[in-house]
């Protein structure tokens, strides 16, 4: 495969791990790997180069414009002007999905979504998509001569630096977007969490509806802190307003792959499990012996979180 383009995402000059994960895979599949980014190319050129990108096509700051329409418009123009990547990889993030959707219309080409693996088959790339909660894998290939657009799930590949030099920065012009560019970001809110980030922590402790009420999430927080990890949650308690969305683990939240995942009062719905099943070791506490979460747990405790968690916290505090 000749060239793969990878969507680079960064916050405060730090490149997102999903970007580095995709670069590691793209490097193994293609001779040339290049990135495109909505924002300042210089700020990310060194990291992207170190991870194998030879070039980064950058729009520069969007000044309040949304990433989706701007980057899709810019990419479509670049392709029309002769750029010819065999495939375009984007992370399954909010912005990644926006760009992929708009680009697919601009190119009149489909998107293969929720991809967890990529393989080369002749001239085309095959994406592997898990369905039915990860029990079945579907392998899909593009049938068109247009570049394939893939949305890749975080934590599908392992990021690894290589000995690449700084990526060459090329300008990527954003065309006039007309009405489609009319939405504006007027304020940015970062929901700060202390300690390691949820999708990077070695230990994740998550709580679900079995905690009973919002106050009880404290126990999950304390346990995460005691183990030097991060706290997570199911969608049920995010929707209930107990914790912010940034803590959600699962299909519509974050994908985590820590060394140890502790699930407290979580049933183990397929949409939750796709976000944590890849953890190395799983411990579950649930009062229902039939809860599906026990089907993936290495150690399952059939018990009441209101008893087990306080005892566990006390034992850890005494050490």
């Amino acid at each position, binding site marked *: 495969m000749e060239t793969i383009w990878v969507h680079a995402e960064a916050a405060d000059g730090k490149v997102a791990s999903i970007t580095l994960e995709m670069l590691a895979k793209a490097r193994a599949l293609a001779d040339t790997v290049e990135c495109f980014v909505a924002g300042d190319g210089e700020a990310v050129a060194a990291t992207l180069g170190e991870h194998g990108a030879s070039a980064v096509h950058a729009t520069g700051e969007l000044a309040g414009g949304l990433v989706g329409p701007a980057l899709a418009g810019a990419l479509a123009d670049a392709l029309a002007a002769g750029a010819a990547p065999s495939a375009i990889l984007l992370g399954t993030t909010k912005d990644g999905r926006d760009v992929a959707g708009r680009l697919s219309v601009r190119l009149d080409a489909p998107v293969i979504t929720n991809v967890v693996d990529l393989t080369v088959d002749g001239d085309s790339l095959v994406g592997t998509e898990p369905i039915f909660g990860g029990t079945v894998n579907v392998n899909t290939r593009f*049938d*068109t001569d247009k570049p394939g657009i893939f949305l890749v799930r975080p934590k599908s590949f392992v990021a690894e630096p290589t000995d690449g030099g700084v990526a060459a920065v090329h300008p990527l012009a954003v065309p006039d977007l007309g009405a489609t560019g009319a939405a504006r970001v007027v304020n940015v809110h970062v929901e700060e969490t202390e300690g390691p980030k949820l999708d990077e922590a070695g230990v994740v402790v998550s709580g679900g509806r079995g905690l009973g009420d919002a106050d009880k999430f404290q126990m999950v927080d304390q346990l995460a802190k005691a183990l030097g990890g991060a706290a997570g949650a199911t969608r049920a308690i995010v929707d209930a307003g107990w914790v912010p969305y940034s803590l959600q683990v699962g299909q519509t939240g974050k994908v985590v792959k820590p060394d140890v995942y502790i699930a407290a009062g979580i049933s183990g719905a397929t949409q939750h499990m796709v976000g944590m099943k890849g953890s190395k070791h799983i*411990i579950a506490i649930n009062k229902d012996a039939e809860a599906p979460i026990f089907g993936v747990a290495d150690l399952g405790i059939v018990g009441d979180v209101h008893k087990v968690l306080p005892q566990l916290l006390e034992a850890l505090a005494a050490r």
Partner: protein
Amino acid sequence: MKIAVCVKQIPDPADPGELDPETHALKRDMKLILDESDSYGVEMALQLAEAAGGGDVVLVSMAPHNETNGLRTALAMGAAEAILVSDDALAGTDALGTAKVLAKAIERVEADLVMTGTESSDGYTGTVPEQVAELLGLPSVTFAKSVEIADGVVKAQRQTEAGYDDIECPLPALVSVTAGVVEPRYPSFKGIMAAKGKPVAELSVADLGIDAGSVGWAGAGQAIVDVATAPEREAGEVVEDDGTGYERIVAYLEQLKVL
């Protein structure tokens, strides 16, 4: 204010899905229900119309076999009418094809606002909303966790990887809402009775002026190579808590050198 809400009708998620062994497409020959993910869009639209001092909420759905079961649920919640696109030519349609059909149907509504979920419960590509917006030439706010409209401008909080952004977007626009943005109402008995008489316009692909070759299996520019059972994770030890369950956890964490 006129609001078009995209609602998908899906097999009951409580029934495990099954792929057609020949076509590898999801079997859809059972009765379909309103996707829970879209009940939030319906509720949000109803509340926005009320806040604007009135207006019509029009449902738009693409589904096989002229299915209206899920639409009736949303009509019972309070939507005024529905457009249903149903056509054998649509079997096998991918997300882009779905968006083309929905966009053509929405054009008929001449809506100020188009509302969708962020992703469906059964296909969950999560790409249809932006595809519809681009096809209609509309700006959009995706992943909205709160939405207000004032003076022809949408003010919404859009979820981001790090938190959320405040977005302002002039109408007409498309907004995709997350689950939990509002609490969907339960249809009242009166609502259920009224829904039976509300108009549902049933359209074919030809009615929409779409070339049948650009949708369905023929239009999907992708081919499924194969389908394989994924390796399963093995369950470990499950023990009943007799008051010492926490000790098992401590011992396991020690064994894993976390402690």
